[in-house]
């Protein structure tokens, strides 16, 4: 929704904001309602980046709304600060700074912990505002007398006062807010935000420092909240203490969910629905206090049946109407948990992909030096020894296979090599550097990554977006705040994505959402994610698992072409495939290296046969 023609959305927003004062009175909108909707909408822009795009549901946004509002109001009413806009900006910066500190604490945990901590923090702010800081904030009286902005243009002074006269100022603020938010959402940082929402584990594994990005989203949301809080004071000519209440945070969450998350306009639409329903139910129907119950029920029903809110519902209807999507409303309501089991059409006689230019790391290193060396690698879980004293060396350019019966410790071994789990003892050298104890993100940045045994994709995104996220980490490093850069303008990115699409044979479906891919395609995308980070050493954990025989043949071909100019280690149970692919094979059993050799040597090795066949020969011989 948020792509295609450049500046289309910006232009439409501007047109809508300009038209509103002429159209809204016709349907009985009071100017003050329109102004309040704009303030809520601006507040919600930041929250939508945090919740809708990054997947962090905070129930504590009132803390920043109040902080920004009170800082601005204090400057204007108590400190005799003359410039309204400057005061608003200082309020915003104060809220962002507070957001940074709060984020450091709240982001120590994720999911429901995060939600609970934000609730608690917001409640503390409320109490602090009311009591210890009452001398500055006016306690339960708030701060009255917040001035409205005026601009001296030399020949005339424009003064924004209230009602429709204040509207242009608020509309302009909202417009700037939406332009900035759109830039952020379309930037590489925005792409990483979505990756974190969809699969934080994989976002980490492809080399993004997700803690930094989460903190960024948190601070952005706090800054928007702070600015909107300041506008609330300007709008009401009074900074009300209830900006700090839990109800404020709750209303924001509900409005965003009603309007539609991850749409940026959701909070605005939600606020419009909320405030006009409130007016309608209270004034027209005379329901009095029951309006909130009606809104509560509407909200629960929306969450149950229309997960993506009003905008999401309209988008689905539009897609159905234009035939883009076959009535998939039910799927919208219940995100697919089971994989569709359909067989994908295997591309006929696919031309072998050009062996792409080998990763740069390859030439500028001493080729004789082994790329990976593990010494005495051991992993204990309590009394259980998963890996014991493994020595393992892989040379540059090699394709190594690892086999072993179930429970031999293969996956644990891979997890240690990619630093997903720390070894109990032993060291890992990658390209001569000791990587023991590093994070999975740093190791990926160095050029070592793996594809997972169970698909770890960004399920809500398209194939191209998936690969883009992985490629971004290789091109931008693990953390970078290029918030206003357009993602297409990153040199080398489109080429790398196209190249990876080609390598994993997904060129025909780049814009398909992952949820609509067949299993085999998902499996190839899984490998593509690892490839797009341009690793110099690629680990593949059971790339053939769960594939039909036909898909296996295709994938083996694919793996062969990938291995050109790369160093790879593959775990699989499909021995025929592995013996065909690998130059050398390591056999693990009960957490130890049983034997290592060429496929031919392994096939003929009696201990290996015994490990797999449980010593049948021995029994027969006896």
């Amino acid at each position, binding site marked *: 929704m948020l792509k295609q023609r450049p500046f289309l959305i910006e232009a439409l927003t501007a047109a809508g904001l300009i038209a509103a004062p002429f159209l809204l009175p016709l349907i009985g909108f009071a100017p003050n309602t329109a102004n309040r909707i704009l303030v809520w909408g601006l507040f919600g822009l930041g929250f939508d980046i945090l*919740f809708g795009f990054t*997947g962090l*549901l905070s*129930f504590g946004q009132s803390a920043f709304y109040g902080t920004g509002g009170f800082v601005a109001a204090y400057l204007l009413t108590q400190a005799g600060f003359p410039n309204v806009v400057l005061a608003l900006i200082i309020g915003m910066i104060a809220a962002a700074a507070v957001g940074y500190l709060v984020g450091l*604490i709240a982001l*120590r*945990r*994720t*999911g*429901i*912990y995060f*939600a*609970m*901590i934000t*609730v*608690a*923090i917001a*409640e*503390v702010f409320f*109490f*602090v505002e*009311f*009591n*210890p800081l009452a001398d500055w904030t006016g306690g339960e009286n708030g701060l009255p007398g917040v001035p409205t902005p005026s601009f001296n243009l030399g020949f005339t002074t424009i003064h924004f006062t209230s009602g429709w006269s204040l509207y242009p100022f608020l509309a302009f603020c909202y417009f700037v807010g939406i332009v900035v938010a759109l830039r952020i959402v379309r930037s590489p940082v925005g792409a990483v935000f979505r990756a974190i929402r969809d699969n934080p584990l994989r976002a980490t594994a492809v080399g993004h420092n997700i803690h930094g990005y989460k903190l960024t989203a948190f601070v952005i949301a706090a800054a928007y909240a702070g600015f909107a809080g300041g506008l609330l004071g300007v709008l009401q000519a009074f900074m009300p203490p209830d900006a700090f209440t*839990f109800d404020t945070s*709750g209303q924001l*969450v*509900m409005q965003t*969910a009603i309007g539609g998350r991850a749409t940026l306009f959701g909070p605005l639409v939600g606020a419009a629905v909320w405030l006009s329903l409130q007016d309608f139910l209270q004034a027209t129907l005379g329901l009095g*206090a*029951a309006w*909130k*119950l009606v809104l*509560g*029920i509407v*909200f*629960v029903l929306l*969450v*149950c049946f229309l*997960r993506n809110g009003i905008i999401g519902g309209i988008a689905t209807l539009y897609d159905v109407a234009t035939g883009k999507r076959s009535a998939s409303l039910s799927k919208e309501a*219940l*995100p697919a*948990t089971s994989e569709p089991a359909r067989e994908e059409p295997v591309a006929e006689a696919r031309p072998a992909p050009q062996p792409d230019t080998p990763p740069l790391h390859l030439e500028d290193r001493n080729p004789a030096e082994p790329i990976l060396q593990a010494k005495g690698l051991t992993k204990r879980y309590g009394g259980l020894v998963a890996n014991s004293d493994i020595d393992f060396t892989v040379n540059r350019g090699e394709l190594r296979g690892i086999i072993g019966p179930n429970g031999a410790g293969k996956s644990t071994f891979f997890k240690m090599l990619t630093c997903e789990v720390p070894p109990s003892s032993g060291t890992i050298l990658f390209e001569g550097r000791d990587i023991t104890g590093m994070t999975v993100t740093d190791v990926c940045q160095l050029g070592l990554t793996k594809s997972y045994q169970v698909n770890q994709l960004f399920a809500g995104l398209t194939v191209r977006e998936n690969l883009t996220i992985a490629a971004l980490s290789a091109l931008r490093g693990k953390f970078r705040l290029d918030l206003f850069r357009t993602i297409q303008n990153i040199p080398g990115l489109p080429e790398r994505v196209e190249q990876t699409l080609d390598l994993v044979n997904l060129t025909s479906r780049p814009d398909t959402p992952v949820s609509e891919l067949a299993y085999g395609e998902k499996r190839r995308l899984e490998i593509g994610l690892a490839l797009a980070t341009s690793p110099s050493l690629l680990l593949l954990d059971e790339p053939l698992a769960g594939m039909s025989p036909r898909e296996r043949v295709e994938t083996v071909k694919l793996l062969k072409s990938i291995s050109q100019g790369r160093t790879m280690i593959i775990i699989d149970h499909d021995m025929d495939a592995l013996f065909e692919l690998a130059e050398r094979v390591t056999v693990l059993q009960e957490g130890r290296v049983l034997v290592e050799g060429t496929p031919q040597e392994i096939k003929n090795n009696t201990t290996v046969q015994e490990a797999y066949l449980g010593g049948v020969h021995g029994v027969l011989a006896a």
Partner: protein
Amino acid sequence: MINWPNFVSQLFNGLALGALLALISSGLTIIYGTLGVLNLAHGAMFMLGGYAGYVAFGYTHSFIIAVIAGSLFVMVVGIVMERVIIRHFYQRPHEDQLLVTFGLGICFVEIVRLLFGSQSQMVPPPSMLQGITSLGFMFYPTYRLAVVGIVAVALSVLFIVLYRTRLGMIVRAGIEDSVMVDSLGINVFRVFMIVFGIGAMAAGFAGIINAPVVSLTPGVGDDILVETFVVVVIGGVGSFPGAILGGLIAGEIISITSMFNPSYAYVMLFAAMTLVLVLRPHGLLGTQGRE
């Protein structure tokens, strides 16, 4: 001011509040531990318990009947809520679960506001527990002492149910791995329903027990919910002993700080939570890896 009897009486206040928080938090934490759903309507359950008891008391003038009616009513509400709505959210993301329970909580509060108005209601303590008791060196309200005893009994019952019965064993197994329990041929859905009912009942029971101490308003559950979250974060999510330990710590922090300056009670509570998050991110008695 701050003197010895005052301090001890605040310690007792903290114990009473802490015991209540422990009970409410255990309800929240066994629901989360078993079903994986954080019930943001848990504060509303506390409030509903109080009001249901208030209504029952109005008809019968018996505190015992009020307690029983209040708890049972909330249990039924919990079971209906689980069957009709929560059940459809097990497969959906955490955010959706939070949103729907948050919305339900608001609906409950607003229904009560519609029926009873916003003004506060009072349930008197039972006649035999009225007045004050002499502890030798000081006097203390009898009912508050009784609250500690009543909640201790309730927690013991909960403990016995959780740790000494077949249902409890299934619940604890479900906390570890609900898929495995399901594949062992135990109807997890029925267990989920019962657990939700018991968890809600714990809050409802606390709600009616608390009604003679703090007057009832429709919003009485909101503050309790926030305190419960802090308790759970301090104690560790999904841990029954953690909920009790966290409850007692939170109760004492709130009352002892209130002795010096009530407005700093939440600040201190929050400081304690931050300290725990920094030193032991999984809570004092929480286990790693349960998010």
